Structure formats: structure tokens, C-alpha cells
């Protein structure tokens, strides 16, 4: 059977990996290529790169980094950040990305999901969503979690999958950076609504949180950044820990 996936996420700004807490107060952490090598050797099942650079210069730097990572590391790479058009898909796929994640770009132009799925296949299109509880509703947020779109996140996910998204990254703003565990209530709700793989993001603070996550059958992968970047949790140890608890892991 398929193994559950452990995915470190690298937020890259101007060529460096950064990770914020509740999306604010970014602090510099390390070199993305070095970190990708480290994670590859630690047994990461996949790597996610988010380009949070705004400038064109930073974008160029990012594609160089991506090309370098993709020429050395042979596990799946997902790339997101600033993806708005098919040209953006094309640009990162040519640099060695396997999957492309869209977030705000799909909110401003939802047709990008269908167009990309038709051109590159469903498996290539990852719908990434930042979601927060507002007035008893799971609400979709845009622009790195800063703007309330007023859209119901679960309906948005269902529509995205219908249009061709092959996987969903659900990032709970409510649990992100708090390290108190994944947002299981939100994840269960999503798992009940869609039948594509779900990657849980936001809230991992220790190994137990992953063990708890994978008792929820609809969840395929756990994504985290700072706990891996700071070596608070070692991926090799985590995978052994989970395997001992009966979770299928690639070791």
C-alpha cells in the first residue's frame, strides 16, 4: 500500500529559506540547495518550495535554485508561490518541478486549474488553500493568509477538484505556527468532501502530532517547515516512530 508522506516545506525569499510564525515576522534560516540535500538524505518523501519573493530578480534567483535542486535530488518536487498563468507552470516545470501548487492565482483566476490540468495532467496541479474559521465557517484566505475572500473553503476545494486539481494542501491559519498539532477537525471536513490526496499543513509541533494525524484515514501526507528546519524533529526519527505505531512509511 501507499506510504504516508512526510514533506518539508521550504519558503524561499530572495534565494534564502525563511519561515514565519502565523505568516508574520519572517526570519532567515538557510540555503535552499543545502537544505534540499539534507532533507533528501534524511528520508523526506517530497519537497515543497514556495517562492515568496516579489521582485523579478528574486524570481530569477529562485528558478536557478530550483534547477540546481532538481538536478541533484531525485524525489518529487512541488513548487508554488506567484503561480498565476500557464507560463508560470511552464517556467517551473522546465526547471524540474513535478507538481505546481496554485493558491492566490487560482482565486483571482479559477480557470487556471482546469487549463493547467488539461495541459499537464491532474497529477501536476496542486490546489493549496489557506483556511481560517470565520463566524463558524471555514473561510478561504488569499495573499499568504492576509485577505479574507469570503469564499467557503470546502466548496472551493470541491470545485477545484472538479476542475482538475489532483491534490490539495490544506493549511490551517488557525493552527499554523502554534505547534499545537494539525487542524484535524478542518482536515476531516475536507477529507469527507474530496477524493484526491490531502496534504495537511499547519500546526505540527512534535512527532505525536504526526502519529495523531495519520490515524485519520483520509490524510495522505503531513507537511511542516520550522520543526524540521530547526532540527527539533528529525525526519528519520519521525519515520521510525511512525512505523513503530503502524503507519506505513518509506524508510
Amino acid at each position, binding site marked *: 500500500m501507499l506510504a504516508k508522506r512526510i514533506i518539508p516545506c521550504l519558503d524561499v525569499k530572495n534565494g534564502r529559506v525563511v519561515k514565519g510564525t502565523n505568516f508574520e515576522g519572517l526570519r532567515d534560516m538557510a540555503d535552499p540547495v543545502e537544505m534540499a540535500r539534507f532533507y533528501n538524505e534524511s528520508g523526506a518523501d517530497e519537497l515543497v518550495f514556495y517562492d515568496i519573493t516579489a521582485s523579478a530578480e528574486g524570481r530569477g534567483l529562485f528558478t536557478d535554485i530550483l534547477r540546481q535542486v532538481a538536478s541533484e535530488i531525485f524525489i*518529487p518536487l512541488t513548487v508554488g508561490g506567484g503561480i498565476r498563468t500557464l507560463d508560470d507552470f511552464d517556467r517551473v516545470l522546465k526547471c*524540474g518541478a513535478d507538481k505546481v501548487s496554485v493558491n492566490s492565482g487560482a482565486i483571482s483566476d479559477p480557470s487556471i486549474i482546469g487549463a493547467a490540468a488539461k495541459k499537464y495532467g491532474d*497529477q501536476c496541479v496542486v490546489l493549496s488553500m489557506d483556511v481560517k474559521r470565520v463566524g463558524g465557517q471555514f473561510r478561504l484566505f488569499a495573499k499568504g493568509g492576509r485577505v479574507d475572500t469570503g469564499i467557503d473553503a470546502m466548496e472551493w476545494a470541491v470545485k477545484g477538484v472538479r476542475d482538475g486539481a489532483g491534490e490539495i494542501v490544506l493549511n490551517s491559519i488557525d493552527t499554523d505556527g502554534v505547534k499545537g498539532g494539525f487542524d484535524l477537525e478542518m482536515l476531516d471536513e475536507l477529507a469527507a468532501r474530496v*477524493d*484526491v490526496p490531502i496534504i495537511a499543513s499547519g500546526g505540527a509541533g512534535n512527532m505525536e502530532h504526526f502519529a495523531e494525524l495519520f490515524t485519520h484515514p483520509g490524510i495522505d501526507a503531513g507537511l511542516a517547515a520550522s520543526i524540521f528546519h530547526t532540527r527539533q524533529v528529525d525526519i528519520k526519527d519521525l519515520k521510525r516512530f511512525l512505523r513503530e505505531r503502524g503507519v506505513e512509511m518509506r524508510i
Partner: protein
Amino acid sequence: MIAIVDYGVGNLFSLSSSLKALGLETEITADAAKLRAADKIILPGVGAFGDAKAKLDATGLVPVLQEEAEKKPFLGICLGMQLLFDRSTEYGEHAGLGFVPGQVVDLRGDLEDKTLKVPHMGWNSLQIVKDDPIFKYFEDGEYVYYVHSFYAKDCLPSTLGTSQYGNVSVTGVVRHGRVYGTQFHPEKSGDAGLRLLRAFAEL
């Protein structure tokens, strides 16, 4: 030199990078003379069967591949492996290359547990069912990376390795004569995948 057949299907960056990382000389080409001169040929592919087969037919290279596949080691990867079979039922009925006996069918139709997700995407362990030089550096049960919705069946005599997904034994590696195929992506299967590619290069 290992030739990677260029027929406008899929992204060849990772495949060529992985072969380079193994220190192997490779060339992405649609040139019949280069395919004839190559020591080995790899047929990649992603996307839909009918579309890919039409593109491959349009290159005019099929008769060359047919001849060369009898003379030298040949490897189809993912959709490139599916194209090796007699036919596929993906969006209608399409004829394949017929290099390996068998057919390609919808995985969903054969899965009893309808809650299992399709595409079969992620890391699954590969069970060796028949030993072969391709497994020289590979251990039984190692994990490999799959992304596919259709799979090859009725090809048991050619099957070298399988991965279990629900009730279905997904055909993971096949061999018929000098023609090999992997349903998973060795170029995305970490170190285990690179070791399979190395063994292929040494055939």
C-alpha cells in the same frame, strides 16, 4: 550513450539529470541515426495514452524503435512503459507498440475498495516476483514513486515486480526480451530509483 526518445511528451529534465548524476552519457533525441547508434534507449512519457501514441507515431520513429528494441536494452518509463503493450483502454481503445504482451486498463475499474484514491500516487513498496539483472542493486520491498491511473495487466509472464494497491497487484516492472518497463518513475524514486537506472545502464 543512452538515448532518451524525444517526442514532445513530458518533462525530461529529471530523467536526464538522474542519468547524468550516475555519470552516464545521455542524449535527448528524435534522430533515428542517434537512436540506432545508442547503446540503450529510454522511452519516457506522461499524459494520456492516445495522445502520446499519436505523437510517437507522428515522429516516424516507431519502426526504428521496433528494430532497436530487439538489438539493445530498451526501457519504457510510466506512460512510456504502458506504450510498450498491445493496447490501452484509456479514453477509447488504442493500439500500443506491442513490444510486451498485455494490455493497459483503468485501475479504478479493478479496485474493489472504492475509497482508494486514483491516481495511485505516492511511494509504494515494490515486491520482486522474478529476479533479474535490473534488480542487481535493488532490495525486495524498497519503495518507488508512482503516479498513474491506468495499469498493465494480462502480462504475468513478463512481470518482474509488483506493488500492492488494495486488491490490485499493480504491475511495477516488466521485461520481455530486451525490453523493460517501469510503471513508477525511477528518476523520482530517490536512491532506490537511481540504483535501478544504474543496473539498466550496466545491462
